[in-house]
C-alpha cells in the first residue's frame, strides 16, 4: 500500500511523526517534492480564490501526489496542545480538498484534537491504522517509534537548525559568531523555499544567522505567551508572539522579520499584536513581509535590502 503525504502546511511541523508511523506499519510513504512553479500553478487553479496562499500550495501538492498514491493522508488537525486551536482553514482542509472537484484517491483524515485528552492523537492514529487492517499492538509500537522520531527532530531544531537544514542533513557550520535575525512565520511559509522566495538563503548569504520560533524551547514560548493580556488560542500565533516577545525583551538579535501570507486570518491579528509590541519596546528594527502568488521577487528584495540597510545603519550609529 502506498500512502501519499503532501509536503505542505503542517507537514513541516509533523513530518517525522507522520512518515515514521506509516513506515513502521510497513506502508510505502510518498511525499510530494518541494514546491515548484508547476505545483503552485496546479494549486492556484484548483483552490477556491479566497483561500490563503499556503492552502493553495497544499492543493497543488495533493494533486501532484494523486496519481502516485492509493491514499492521501490529510489529518484534520483541530488542536495540537490542550487549550489551543489550529487555524479553521486547516481544520476544514480534508473537506475542502474532497470537494475541490478533482480526481483524488481516498483521503484518510483522522481528527487530531488534543482538547479531547492527552492520548487523543495516539488513539486517532491507532483507530485509523485499524481501519487499514493493522492491530492495536502493532499500531501502538509504531506510535512510540514515531513519537521518538518527532522528539529527535524537535531537539535538532533546538540546536539552531531549520527544518530545511535537518532534511538536507546540513552540517553545522559555525554561525554562532554572526549577528542574528529573528525570522517569524509559519513553518510552511518560511521553510518552503519556493514560497518564501528563498528568504533564509538570502539572509544567510548576507552574513546573518537566522533564528526561528521553532528553535526556542516550548517552556520559553509558554512563559512569554502567558504575558499576553488574554490567552491566545491559536497555537501557531502563540509560537510567533512568544518568540517575538522573548527576543524583544532579552535582545540577542539585531532585527525581527515577520513573514505573513496575504489573506491569512489569524496573522492579520497576530501580526498587529507583534508589531505593536515591537514598537512599544522600540529597540529592534521590525519588518513585515507579505507573501503572495507572485514569483517575481522584486518587491521582496527591495524591502529586504532596505531593512538590512536599516539594521546595519542602526548598528553603526
Amino acid at each position: 500500500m502506498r500512502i501519499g503525504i503532501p509536503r505542505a502546511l503542517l507537514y513541516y511541523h509533523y513530518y517525522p511523526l507522520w512518515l515514521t508511523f506509516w513506515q513502521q506499519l510497513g506502508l510505502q510513504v510518498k511525499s510530494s517534492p518541494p514546491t515548484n512553479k508547476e505545483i503552485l500553478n496546479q494549486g492556484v487553479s484548483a483552490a477556491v480564490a479566497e483561500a490563503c496562499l499556503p492552502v493553495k500550495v497544499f492543493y497543488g501538492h495533493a494533486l501532484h501526489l494523486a496519481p502516485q498514491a492509493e491514499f492521501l493522508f490529510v489529518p484534520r488537525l483541530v488542536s495540537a496542545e490542550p487549550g489551543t486551536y489550529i487555524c479553521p482553514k486547516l481544520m476544514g482542509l480534508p473537506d475542502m480538498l474532497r470537494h475541490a472537484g478533482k480526481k483524488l484517491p481516498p483521503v484518510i483524515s483522522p481528527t487530531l484534537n488534543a482538547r479531547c485528552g492527552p492520548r487523543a492523537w495516539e488513539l486517532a492514529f491507532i483507530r485509523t491504522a485499524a481501519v487499514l487492517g493493522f492491530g492495536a499492538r502493532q499500531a501502538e509500537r509504531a506510535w512510540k517509534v514515531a513519537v521518538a522520531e518527532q522528539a529527535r527532530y524537535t531537539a535538532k531544531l533546538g540546536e539552531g537548525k531549520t527544518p530545511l537544514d535537518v532534511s538536507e542533513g546540513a552540517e553545522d557550520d559555525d554561525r554562532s559568531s554572526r549577528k542574528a535575525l529573528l525570522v517569524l512565520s509559519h513553518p510552511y511559509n518560511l521553510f518552503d523555499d519556493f514560497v518564501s522566495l528563498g528568504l533564509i538563503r538570502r539572509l544567510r548569504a548576507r552574513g546573518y544567522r537566522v533564528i526561528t520560533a521553532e528553535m526556542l524551547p516550548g517552556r520559553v514560548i509558554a512563559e512569554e505567551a502567558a504575558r499576553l493580556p488574554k490567552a491566545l488560542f491559536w497555537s501557531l500565533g502563540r509560537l510567533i508572539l512568544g518568540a517575538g516577545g522573548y527576543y524583544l525583551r532579552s535582545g540577542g538579535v539585531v532585527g525581527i522579520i515577520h513573514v505573513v501570507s496575504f489573506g491569512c486570518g489569524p496573522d492579520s491579528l497576530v501580526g498587529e499584536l507583534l508589531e505593536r509590541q515591537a514598537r512599544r519596546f522600540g529597540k529592534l528594527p521590525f519588518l513585515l513581509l507579505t507573501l503572495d502568488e507572485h514569483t517575481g521577487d522584486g518587491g521582496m528584495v527591495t524591502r529586504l535590502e532596505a531593512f538590512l540597510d536599516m539594521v546595519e545603519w542602526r548598528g553603526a550609529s
Partner: protein
Amino acid sequence: MQAYLGLDVGSVSTNLVLLDERGEVISSLYLRTQGNPIRAVQEGLAQVEKEIPAGTSIAGVGTTGSGRQLAATMVGADTVKNEITAHAVAALNELPEVQTVLEIGGQDSKIIILRQGVVVDFAMNTVCAAGTGSFLDRQAARLGVPIEEFGALAERAENPVRIAGRCAVFAESDMIHKQQLGYPVEDIVAGLCEALVRNYLNNVAKGKDIAAPILFQGGVAANIGMRRAFEKALGFPVIVPPYHAVMGALGAALLAKRAVAGRRSTHFRGFDVSRWHFAVSSRSCGGCANQCEVVEIRGEGKLLARWGDRCGRWSNVSVEAAGR
C-alpha cells in the same frame, strides 16, 4: 571637475541627477519611462551629456528604483541601492534633522521614519496602488484638468467634498456621483486629495510614529493640494524639497559619491552607452519544474548580465566567459 551621477529608474519615471563634488545639483532630469526603461536611460544619458559643463568627468554612478539592476548593468554602476535607502539619504542631505519622509511616486508610495539621522522604520504600499501618481493622473485626465493645475485648483476649494478613498475604483465612482450632483470641480479635486491622504495614512503609514520635520518627496509632492491635505490631516507643516521629484536619483548620486570615496576608478562605461545597441531577451529555463524566466541583456552584441533564475545556473555564469 568631478561629478557624480544618480539614476532612479521607476515604473513611471526615470530620473537622473548630476552632483558636483560638494553635493550640489548640476543638472536634474525627470523623464517618463513609458514601459521602456532602456530607452529612458539612454535618453537621459544623452541629455546629461549635453548639459554637463566642459572639463567635468563622471567619478561615480549610483542606481536605484525598480529598474536599478537593469540600469546598473547598462551604465556600469558603482553602487546599486533600494529606493528606501536612496530616498532616506537624499532627505538627510536636504534636512539633517528630518524625522519623517512621505514619498508618493507613480506606482508606489512609502513612508520612512528617521531618528537622529538613522532610518528606524519604513513601509511601502503592498497590493493597492490607490493614491499614487498614476491614479491622480487618470482622475485629472477624466476631469479634464491638466495634472499641473490639479493642485492649484484644489487650493481654491471652499468645501472639499468627502470622497471614498479606500479603493481607487470606489473613489472614481464616488467622484462621478458627486459630479453628477453638481458639486464644483475644485471641491471634488480637493476632496480627492483628502481621500488619498487618508488612504495613505491608514494603509502605508498605519501605526507609524509620524513626527516633524516632515519631508514630502516624489512626483506627487508637486501637487499643492496633496501637501495641504497632509498638513490638514497631520497638523504639522509639510516641507517639499526643491528637487522633490528626483530625490531617489539624488540619493543614488550621493551614495555613488560615498561608494567611490578613497577609490580612483568608476565602473561607468561612459556616455557612449546612450548610443549603444542594447538587446534584451527572455526565455524559460527548462532545467527544472520551476521554469524560471531568465532575462539576458546584451550591449553591442556582448553579454552583460543574466538574471531571473532561482538557482544561479544562469546568473552565476561568468559574464566575461559567456560573452565570447
